[in-house]
């Protein structure tokens, strides 16, 4: 999947996602689940970690599923599986695709949104790193120990400090990229660049199998 072209992967993820959304067969949704797992494993992605990440939307879907249980447990199971299947497919796409190419494709529709996405993508990792450093620093200084009020005060000061520091980092990044010739547009190769190659077999197979499972579920009337 890593070698395949971005546009084929985006297209096949869209097809597979559409199949998950429109499937009315529990068996088909179970089949989609295993299909996503197999492709993740074949792409050498950390399947267990991705399953944990997929459990997060499933947890919130569970709230909705509980409110549907009065009609049918199968309906609740479908709700959960749709959440998990959709999450696994998106994680498969995101973990095998350079996001910069996907964002550059969005730039063909709106330059403002793609600029925002590019900058956010950069800032997100900078801020995660900064947050971890500051959190370690405050812990080492005993800032998160003591009375409830001192913990709350110090945690709030930490968040305020991080917020101000993020904004200053952002402004420094902007000044730096302006110095390097930024004129309001980031250059990146869009997902639509390049033709289809034999490496695109994997995503095409994913889409074909997803559709096949959907048809099996619908046409053959599997529950």
């Amino acid at each position: 999947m890593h070698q395949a072209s971005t546009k084929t992967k985006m297209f096949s993820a869209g097809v597979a996602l559409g199949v998950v959304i429109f499937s009315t067969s529990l068996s088909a949704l179970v089949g989609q689940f295993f299909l996503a797992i197999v492709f993740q494993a074949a792409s050498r992605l950390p399947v267990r970690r991705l399953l944990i990440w997929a459990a997060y939307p499933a947890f919130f879907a569970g709230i909705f599923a509980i409110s549907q249980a009065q009609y049918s447990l199968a309906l609740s199971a479908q709700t959960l599986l749709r959440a998990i299947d959709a999450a696994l497919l998106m994680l498969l796409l995101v973990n095998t695709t350079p996001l910069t190419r996907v964002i550059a494709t969005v730039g063909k529709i709106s330059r403002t949104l793609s600029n925002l996405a590019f900058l956010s993508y950069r800032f997100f990792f900078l801020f995660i790193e900064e947050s971890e450093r500051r959190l370690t620093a405050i812990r080492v200084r005993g800032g998160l120990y003591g009375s409830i009020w001192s913990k709350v005060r110090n945690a709030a000061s930490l968040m305020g400090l991080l917020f101000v520091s993020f904004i200053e980092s952002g402004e420094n990044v902007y000044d730096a990229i302006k110095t390097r010739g930024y004129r309001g547009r980031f250059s990146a190769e869009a997902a639509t660049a390049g033709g289809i190659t034999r490496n695109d077999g994997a995503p095409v197979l994913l889409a074909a199998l997803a559709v096949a499972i959907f048809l099996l579920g619908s046409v053959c009337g599997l529950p």
Partner: protein
Amino acid sequence: MHIHIPDGVLPIWLWATGYLITLALAALAIKRIRGQERKSIMAAVMVAVMLVVQSIPLGVPYHMNLSALTGIVLGPWWALLSILVTNIAQAAIGHGGITIVGLNTLVVWSEALVGYCLFAVLRKTTKSGGLRSPLVAGVSTFVALTVSAFLVVGIVAISGIDPTQALGEHFREFLPATGRLQVSLMVFMILTLPIALSGALLEALVTSLLVAYVLRVKPSLIPRGD
């Protein structure tokens, strides 16, 4: 409040309408913000801040958004674009469905919009003082998040469940005469509102403390702050 309804549950007309309205508003926002290139940095910072904050586990099925703060800091139009990018990024990692991005953006933007408007109005109508802006920010955030929680309940209430999408042919005999099932709204409200309102209180407190700190250190970040 972020809608965590998975894909394939809400009827197509509902999430498609959400997308259409969101895209129309985004197009309007892009027109309104022309020439404000430097503010795009602040907007990108707020996107990253929202993504970081929404990743913080609180040990309960709730996460903060800081959407009201985003509205206060950026104004409504940049806030809309930031929230749209945040929701797309989250849908890409499975946090909320891809089909729900439009509705999610509208719900979270309602927090930013209400937060922005209330902050501006309450600041004008309250006595000046050191704690005015932080308190007003906290109250605005709580009201904004409460409004969005009920907005989510409203969305669930009008959605029903499309049987052909959710159940298929096997369960037609269980359908009422109307052909549509209603989600058990009471169950949904009992499950989500206590958590949502408690979370609103927490986020109001956090926003209030954040605004107080920022006003001490870098007051220019809060428009119309003390």
